[in-house]
């Protein structure tokens, strides 16, 4: 049953991502992108990363894609849909590169002989915090525990990065005023 769910959500993710790439209308592409992100969140649920699934839906499918849709509708860039792709040579080259990567991925991972098939480990309900590595848990408490112990410095750096991004966005999107 859960295996069937994996295949269904994997198919939805791949098909909607492909529709996003080939869709001539950018708004339709953004909607396909939202579907792809939500089914990726469903795959996170299948991997028992519930907190990340919620974050994925809130941040990616919510905030990021709404920002994209807002900018697409603000710009109205779909006036001429005649010249979507660059030229014939670019089309042939990109399709050749895409098929090369697909063949490589299928040869490496579809047969299942190269990587050992590891079994799913049991999941703890609560983090213990003992030992060096933090074991895989389903609770959001372990995120807070890891963020404030092992990943304290990256957490602070990410905060400064968000501050810098905010100031940068304000500076870049401000209307340029001529100095008199």
């Amino acid at each position, binding site marked *: 049953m859960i*295996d069937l769910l*994996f295949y269904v959500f994997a198919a939805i*993710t*791949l098909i909607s*991502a*492909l529709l*996003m*790439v080939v869709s001539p209308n*950018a708004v339709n*592409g*953004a909607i396909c*992108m939202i579907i*792809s*992100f939500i089914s*990726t969140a469903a*795959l*996170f649920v*299948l*991997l028992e*990363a519930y*907190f*990340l699934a919620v974050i*994925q839906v809130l941040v*990616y499918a919510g905030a*990021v894609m709404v920002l*994209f849709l807002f*900018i697409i509708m603000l*710009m109205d*860039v779909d006036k001429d849909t005649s010249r*979507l792709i*660059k030229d014939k040579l670019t*089309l042939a080259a990109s399709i050749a*590169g*895409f098929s090369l*990567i697909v063949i490589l991925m*299928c040869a490496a*991972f579809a047969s*299942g002989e190269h990587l050992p*098939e*590891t079994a*799913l*480990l049991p999941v703890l309900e609560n*983090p213990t915090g003992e030992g060096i*590595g933090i*074991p*895989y*848990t389903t609770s959001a408490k*372990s*995120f807070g525990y*890891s*963020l404030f112990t*092992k*990943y304290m410095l990256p957490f602070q750096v*990410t905060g400064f*990065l968000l501050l810098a*991004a905010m100031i*940068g*966005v304000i500076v*870049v*999107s401000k209307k340029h005023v001529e100095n008199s």
Partner: protein
Amino acid sequence: MTVGLNAFILLAGLLFAIGLLGVILRKNTLVIYMSLELMLNAVNLALVAFSRYNGTMDGNLFVFFIITVAAAEVALGLAIIVALFRLRQTVMVDELTSLSR
């Protein structure tokens, strides 16, 4: 669930390939940017799968940081695209070649 790690890595690789196809094929800057987000998403999926099958929390924390940085990056990139559109009235990459002349 009896689906192994290989299936998740294959799915993440195919998603990454689709994102790469979008980046090198399309001309609209916004669609190129969405394809970049798709590639980041594929890496997130691979990291969560490795974390789950390895039994440690570190991959999940990486994905947490990647989502944070991606949100900041999208805000900044879209601001740059809006400034470019205000200056040149287009977002098609084949018309934004003023540096090569």
